[in-house]
């Protein structure tokens, strides 16, 4: 049930995520040494426009990519079709985006007060 447009979006977001994921993993490997704490995470990310852009991009990409991906699985394995399928894709995409955006907002601009 993928058209050229959805296909391209999925591939572009995938390409975008690849370096982001590597970056994220690298940071995690570095960061987890000696254990994690909220303060540590926040200390790194809070107020940083760079981190905001980094994770912001990631969230947008993941929302688009994941929604399209799950759509394919719903269609092929779940037999979902038509408006329900479109609806599910948007729901998943927007849901992922909302949750992700909240998280990014939280770690960069949240908890400052």
């Amino acid at each position, binding site marked *: 049930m993928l058209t050229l447009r959805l296909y391209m979006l999925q*591939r572009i977001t*995938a*390409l975008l*995520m*690849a370096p982001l*994921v*590597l970056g994220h*993993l690298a940071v*995690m*490997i*570095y960061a*987890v*040494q000696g*254990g*994690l*704490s*909220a*303060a540590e*995470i*926040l200390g790194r990310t809070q107020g940083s426009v760079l981190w905001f852009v980094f994770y912001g991009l990631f969230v947008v990409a*993941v929302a688009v990519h*994941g929604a399209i*991906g*799950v759509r394919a*699985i719903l269609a092929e394995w779940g037999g979902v079709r038509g408006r329900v399928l479109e609806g599910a894709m948007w729901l*998943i995409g927007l*849901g*992922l985006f909302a*949750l*992700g955006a*909240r*998280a990014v*907002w*939280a*770690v960069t601009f*949240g*908890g400052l007060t």
Partner: protein
Amino acid sequence: MKAVINRAHPLWLAHVLHRLSGLALALFLPLHFWVLSLALTDPARLDGFLALTDQTVVKLAEYGLVFLLAVHMFGGLRVMAMEFLPWTAPQKTLAAMASALSFLIATLFFLQAL
């Protein structure tokens, strides 16, 4: 079921693995986001969660998730290499092997870090 097993072959298994890892990621990420957003509402609880990461079970779970991400990412890069690089079949096999190797090294590092 037996029929499915009879039909199985490496590329097909790679696809199934990629699909399952993608699905698992899509299910896990909301959770991950929720935990992080605790930073906004309740940093103390976030710390509580993070403290848990010292326990082996949780460590293993974390590792599982990173594993999923890595598997899915390399699987996805492999798919895109097959699609976009007009390589010959042996070149693709080589590339797949190379990425598998780098993946192995990366996880080793990670395990050490853990």
